[in-house]
């Protein structure tokens, strides 16, 4: 598999690792600062709504835009695809006898591989954005939408410049390097007949484009040469300036954590130009379709057209942070890159790189355009699974084993037996497995317990506690087979508060693993069974989970996969509204705890806890543990588990885990609390493998041992 080799190579790239890691942690802070005091959710919702167009609407905006700019003699053209756009641009350059063409950074021109085409036609395109220019003279491609050369060190840049200019360059003198670029590029603005820019926004109501830059190269490219070509995707159209300003407000904050970028340039029509024969600039607008227009009608890909190209879905993506943009995306990178690769480029390539998504949802929650990227990626995975093949072993597991509760149970029982000789002394974990590749042994896996949670539930007579106050508990596979004691603690605690806890008659997987692996069919069947075995939602105050991923599946996927089944849809809708994490339930019930010990705790927020179930228990824990609670840096960043992801990409998984462990050690806490059995598997396993003595517990285990206070 090509992708696995590419991943391996990037994982060994120490420069890339350090640059991306440093960037990601600084980025999160500056973004937070830039957004402080703003209602981010409202703003992004505004942007989402303002960009929600049908194909007819976008074409109407295009006509409106066109009318306005044609008044001053500009030309507005439609390009069906990349080749058509390249041809049009070449024709314009030739018509004006251009030799040199200055280009300001434009992802759209990367999309159509414009430079390559122009060079073949004997033209000399010069990238003027510093990062792009470095890559151009190095013969490489961008690895980030906003910081194209983030994968390069100053030493590497110094070498590239030395080779290009023949000057000796001190690798620590970045100032000098920037001056050299300034000197070299300045002359090209004057040599060039044509300047090409992209546009971040096209305002239909007036026919004005907006370009956002820090360097000012777009201003020079659109001012000095007598010809200006604007290459813009149809999706950049907005109705009016009010909508445009919303984008201007969030774009730089999301992109780099800047309050605003240095230059926002608004250009309408043909402006004066002393170098032009007519005294006015020859201005051309090329609107690129390349599939976009039809996607305005697509049920789940449509939203991707709302992207404002801030690049921040890459900045927060833990998987991207491990491998960088040369693997994670094709031309466009990060979460949106995975999606746009399917839409605008190679579907087969997209199928491969889509598997790099661990499903943490950080991108969705961060996107200033309100795009639920993770959900689109998940839908694309299912689409790819249907169209191409799914790994036959996985397919068998999801379709024949996991969706059949009795078969699954038998299989797990058998596994519990087979694993016996491989158990560590405590029987809690497995020893390092000798016959699997070393890279998989970055954590100690938990053992399958001989008694399932459902069996313990009966055995301990937890099913005999009756009360009028009732909750329904969905244990999920991890609690059922690997961590039954976590479930028992929770039930005991709830019974102390007077709640009767019911569990499913038969334990079925929530369906998320199958869906994530692209097996939508098995996912759907699994979900339908689940709904059957779950109690009547009207009888229960809440549906509780100890695994937030199951919770999120119940909340989101159950509805999505029962659209064709009216009764089941109705039931999942009701259940979805009542599903919550255990801590959230305690909070709502106003139940507190008292803790006198001196153990120091910290908390890791599982991806689907904060971002899926929308509850962060940190405040709640501070109340309980006071001084003894130490917040964890990047608490809500993924631990790298991601179900079968950690088996498919152990290198990425363990890399993400290492960063988590570093943050945990920095808290000096004795015990890490969390809310997800998957995270326990990953983090506890990693700590044990490294011999680090920090305990890892599910909240339910710790709370059950504390003194309860009913407020």
């Amino acid at each position, binding site marked *: 598999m090509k992708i696995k080799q590419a991943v391996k190579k990037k994982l060994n790239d120490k420069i890339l690792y350090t640059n991306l890691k440093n960037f990601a942690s600084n980025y999160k802070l500056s973004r937070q600062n830039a957004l402080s005091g703003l209602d981010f959710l409202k703003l992004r919702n505004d942007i989402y709504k303002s960009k929600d167009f049908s194909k007819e609407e976008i074409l109407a905006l295009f006509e409106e835009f066109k009318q306005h700019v044609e008044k001053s003699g500009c030309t507005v053209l439609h390009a069906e695809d990349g080749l058509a756009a390249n041809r049009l641009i070449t024709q314009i350059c030739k018509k004006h006898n251009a030799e040199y063409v200055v280009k300001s950074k434009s992802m759209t021109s990367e999309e159509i591989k414009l430079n390559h085409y122009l060079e073949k036609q004997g033209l000399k395109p010069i990238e003027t954005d510093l990062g792009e220019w470095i890559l151009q003279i190095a013969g490489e491609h961008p690895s980030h939408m906003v910081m194209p050369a983030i994968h390069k060190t100053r030493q590497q840049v110094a070498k590239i410049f030395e080779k290009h200019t023949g000057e000796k360059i001190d690798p620590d003198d970045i100032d000098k390097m920037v001056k050299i670029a300034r000197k070299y590029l300045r002359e090209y603005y004057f040599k060039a007949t044509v300047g090409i820019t992209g546009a971040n926004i096209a305002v239909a109501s*007036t026919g*004005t484009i907006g370009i956002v830059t820090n*360097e000012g190269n777009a201003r020079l490219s659109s001012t000095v040469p007598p010809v200006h070509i604007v290459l813009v995707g149809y999706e950049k159209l907005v109705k009016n300036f009010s909508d445009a300003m919303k984008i201007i407000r969030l774009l730089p904050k999301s992109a780099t954590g800047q309050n605003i970028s240095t230059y926002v340039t608004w*250009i309408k029509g043909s402006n004066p130009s002393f170098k032009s024969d007519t005294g006015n600039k020859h201005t051309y607008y090329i609107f690129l379709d390349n599939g976009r227009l039809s996607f305005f009608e697509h049920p789940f890909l449509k939203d991707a057209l709302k992207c404002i190209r801030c690049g921040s879905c890459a900045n927060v993506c833990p998987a991207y942070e491990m491998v960088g943009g040369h693997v994670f995306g094709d031309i466009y990178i990060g979460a949106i890159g995975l999606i746009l690769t399917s839409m605008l480029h190679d579907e087969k390539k997209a199928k491969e790189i889509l598997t790099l998504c661990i499903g943490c949802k950080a991108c969705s929650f961060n996107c200033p355009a309100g795009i639920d990227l993770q959900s689109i990626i998940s839908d694309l995975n299912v689409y790819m699974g249907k169209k191409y093949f799914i790994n036959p072993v996985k397919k068998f597991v999801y379709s024949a084993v996991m969706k059949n509760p009795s078969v699954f149970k038998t299989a797990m029982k058998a596994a519990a037996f087979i694993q016996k000789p491989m158990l560590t002394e405590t029987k809690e974990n497995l020893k390092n497995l000798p016959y699997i590749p070393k890279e998989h042994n970055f954590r100690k896996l938990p053992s399958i317990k001989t008694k399932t949670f459902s069996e313990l539930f009966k055995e301990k007579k937890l099913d005999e506690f009756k009360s009028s106050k009732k909750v329904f508990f969905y244990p999920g596979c991890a609690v059922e087979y690997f961590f039954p004691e976590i479930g028992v603690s929770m039930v005991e605690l709830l019974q102390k508060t007077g709640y009767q806890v019911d569990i499913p008659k038969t334990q079925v997987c929530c369906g998320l693993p199958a869906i994530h692996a692209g097996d939508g069919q098995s996912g759907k069947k699994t979900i339908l069974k689940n709904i059957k075995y779950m109690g009547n939602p009207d009888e229960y105050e809440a549906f509780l989970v100890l695994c937030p991923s199951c919770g999120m599946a119940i909340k989101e996927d159950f509805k999505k996969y029962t659209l064709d089944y009216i009764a089941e849809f109705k039931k999942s809708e009701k259940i979805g509204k009542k599903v919550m994490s255990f801590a959230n339930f305690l909070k709502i019930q106003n139940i507190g705890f008292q803790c006198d010990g001196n153990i120091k705790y910290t908390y890791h927020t599982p991806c689907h806890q904060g971002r899926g179930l929308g509850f962060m228990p940190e405040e709640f824990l501070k109340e309980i543990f006071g001084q003894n609670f130490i917040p964890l840096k990047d608490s809500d960043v993924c631990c790298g588990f991601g179900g079968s992801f950690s088996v498919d990409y152990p290198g990425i998984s363990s890399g993400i885990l290492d960063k988590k462990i570093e943050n945990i050690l920095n808290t000096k806490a004795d015990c890490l609390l969390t809310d997800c059995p998957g995270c326990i598997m990953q983090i506890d396993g990693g700590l044990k493998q490294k011999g680090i003595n920090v305990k890892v517990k599910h909240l339910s285990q710790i709370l059950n041992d504390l003194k309860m206070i009913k407020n």
Partner: protein
Amino acid sequence: MTNTEALLEKFIEKAETEQTSCIKIDKEAFKNILREQNFDFVNLNTPFKSFNKGCEFDEAGIKNAIVGADFAIAETGTSVIDSTDEKIRLATTLAENLFIALHSSNIVAKLENIVSYMNEKNSADNAYLAFITGPSRTADIERVLTIGVHGPVSLTCYIIQDL
């Protein structure tokens, strides 16, 4: 503090974090500056119009230029400059040191407050408007913030107190 003063302070705070020097000044003192400093390029409105002067532009660039801003935006520390006149575009992009003159009465709170101005200016057949917040910058090499990559290496705002 009156609302205008608050906006002024906010503007200065935000502009300074973006490496812009802000100087509060009254009309007469500003006229003195215009007399003393030998700007290569001056483009201002009344009452400073008599100081306006042009220059030639080539790839050598110019030493310094001063232009008037129509508005300033407090929340971002941004100056709004009508650059439809090509000379203003060239001067503001090619000057080593850029100076902007703005009136404190023209500071608005938010980006949204500039919408009607944008609509008005863009009702003409052509327009070129610039929001400028600080000197030209890059962070493309190891994300180290470096000033003056293509355009001005410094930006100074004279805020003329006309209230």
